[in-house]
């Protein structure tokens, strides 16, 4: 933190601000910026009006393989990979831009933004060790899969959705209500 230029710090604060506004947890901010923990805590409290949630990030790699989360995270990672391949964006800036484009898609399509920024960040850290992207043998799209799995004949969840795919608990309980009402 010592001998740091004010301009650099300004840039870092702007980056941290953007990440906090998108919902980043403290661990994300500590990794993606070189600001001190104390400074980040103050910034977080100032922007959100409350202390950041404490404790470990609860996210497991398996979450990204559940049907609906897999569609959302695959879309996010495809946008991210597109930006890294075709623009100069890297690191946290690529994360922010692809996450914004993901949110935009979700909004336009009337979907729930089930992938949070912190989860998206976690996903980037899992890629290459626990997870990888594989091509669907039917549609050719790139999807998140376990690294250990044998993925040569992989078929994505959109080409072959499970029978209960996309049915939320709410819809399921409504369906139960309907059945009960009909009795």
């Amino acid at each position, binding site marked *: 933190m010592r001998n740091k230029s004010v301009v650099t710090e300004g840039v870092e604060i702007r980056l941290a601000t953007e990440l906090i506004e998108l919902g980043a947890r403290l661990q994300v901010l500590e990794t993606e910026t070189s600001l001190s923990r104390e400074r980040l805590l103050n910034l977080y409290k100032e922007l959100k009006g409350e202390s950041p949630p404490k404790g470990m990030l609860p996210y497991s790699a398996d979450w990204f393989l559940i049907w609906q989360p897999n569609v959302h995270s695959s879309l996010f990672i*495809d946008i991210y990979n597109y*930006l890294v391949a*075709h623009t100069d964006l890297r690191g946290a800036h690529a994360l922010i*831009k692809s996450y914004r484009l993901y949110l935009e898609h979700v909004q*336009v*399509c009337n979907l729930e933004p089930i992938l949070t920024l912190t989860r998206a960040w976690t996903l980037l850290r899992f890629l290459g060790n626990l997870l990888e992207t594989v091509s669907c043998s039917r*549609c050719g*799209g790139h999807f998140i899969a376990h690294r250990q799995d044998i993925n040569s004949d992989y078929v994505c969840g*959109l080409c072959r959705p499970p029978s209960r795919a*996309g049915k939320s608990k709410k819809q399921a309980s409504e369906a139960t209500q309907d059945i009960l009402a009909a009795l």
Partner: protein
Amino acid sequence: MNTSDMLEAIKDLNLTYLMLAQHMIREDKSAAVYRLGVSQELADVLADLTAGQVLRMARTNVLLCRMRFDDRLILGLLTSHGNENMMPQSHAAILLSGQPVEELA
């Protein structure tokens, strides 16, 4: 629609497309590269076109923007019509992100 109406409509669409593309690139180049599906180099060229050049480019008998979906995707979208659980728009977005960009030859 007679031919002259059609040519007029093509010119209008070309003009709208080029102007929108320029606006998007100037506003946020990275996002525009994603949305338009063009390379950064092509985006720079588009953004630098003068109003006169845009007008001359638009005045032609062919469309300047191209269909970005391949047959398989169109088929997939059509067959999943009416089934909201298939998330066809998300599927389309995933496939589009994996396609190569339009580049300068």
